[in-house]
C-alpha cells in the first residue's frame, strides 16, 4: 500500500517536471518562431535587392521587370497577406482599406533602401538613391 502511494508521489513529481520542461520548450520554440516571423523570405529579399520587384504607391508590391510565374506567385502571395493586414488594421483605425494601404505605401516607399525600386507619383519605376524618394504630395514627412 505504502509503495503504491510512494509510486504515485514519484509519478506526480515526474509529471510536474515534464510539464515544466514542456512549458520551457514551448517558450523556446515561440521565441524562435518570433524571430523567424520578422524576417523576409530570402527569395523576396533577393528580388527586392535586384530590382525585380518594387514598392507601389498603393501600398502593394509590384513587378518591375519581366514577370515569371514564380515571381508573380511570390508577389501575389505577399500582396494577399498585406491586404489582409491592411483590412484588419484599417477597421481598428476606423479608416478604409484604400486609405490605410495608401498610407502604408507612403511609408514603405520612404523606407526603401538605395538600389531598391519604387513607384513615383507619375507611375514610373524609380531606383532609390540616398536622396529622399519622389512621393505623393499627400504622404507624411
Amino acid at each position, binding site marked *: 500500500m505504502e509503495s503504491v502511494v510512494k509510486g504515485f508521489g514519484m509519478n506526480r513529481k515526474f509529471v510536474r517536471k515534464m510539464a515544466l520542461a514542456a512549458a520551457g520548450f514551448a517558450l523556446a520554440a515561440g521565441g524562435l518562431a518570433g524571430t523567424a*516571423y520578422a524576417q523576409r523570405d530570402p527569395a523576396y529579399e533577393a528580388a527586392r535587392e535586384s530590382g525585380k520587384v518594387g514598392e507601389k504607391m498603393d501600398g502593394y508590391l509590384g513587378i518591375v521587370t519581366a514577370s515569371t510565374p514564380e515571381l508573380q506567385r511570390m508577389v501575389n502571395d*505577399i500582396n494577399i497577406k498585406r491586404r489582409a*493586414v491592411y483590412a484588419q488594421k484599417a477597421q481598428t483605425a476606423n479608416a478604409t482599406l484604400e486609405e490605410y494601404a495608401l498610407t502604408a505605401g507612403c*511609408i514603405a516607399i520612404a523606407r526603401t533602401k538605395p538600389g531598391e525600386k519604387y513607384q513615383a507619383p507619375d507611375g514610373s519605376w524609380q531606383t532609390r538613391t540616398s536622396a529622399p524618394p519622389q512621393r505623393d504630395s499627400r504622404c507624411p514627412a
Partner: protein
Amino acid sequence: MQGSATAPKRAIRSLPLVMAGLVTLAGCISVEAPDKPIVIELNINIRQEVIYRLAEDAGNTIEENAEIF
C-alpha cells in the same frame, strides 16, 4: 358541429406557415447578386489629413509584419 369548428382553427394554425412561405418566396425574388464586380475608385478622395492620422499606425504595422514588407 365538430367539423365546422376544426376547419377555421386549422386555417388559422396554417396561416403563419403560409406567410413564412410567402416571405421566403418574396426574398428569393428580390435578392439578386450583382453579376459584375462593383469597382469604386477611392484613391482620389483620400485626403492628406487621413494619411497623417494613419501614418504612425501604418509604420508600426510595417514593423510588426516585416516579413511581408
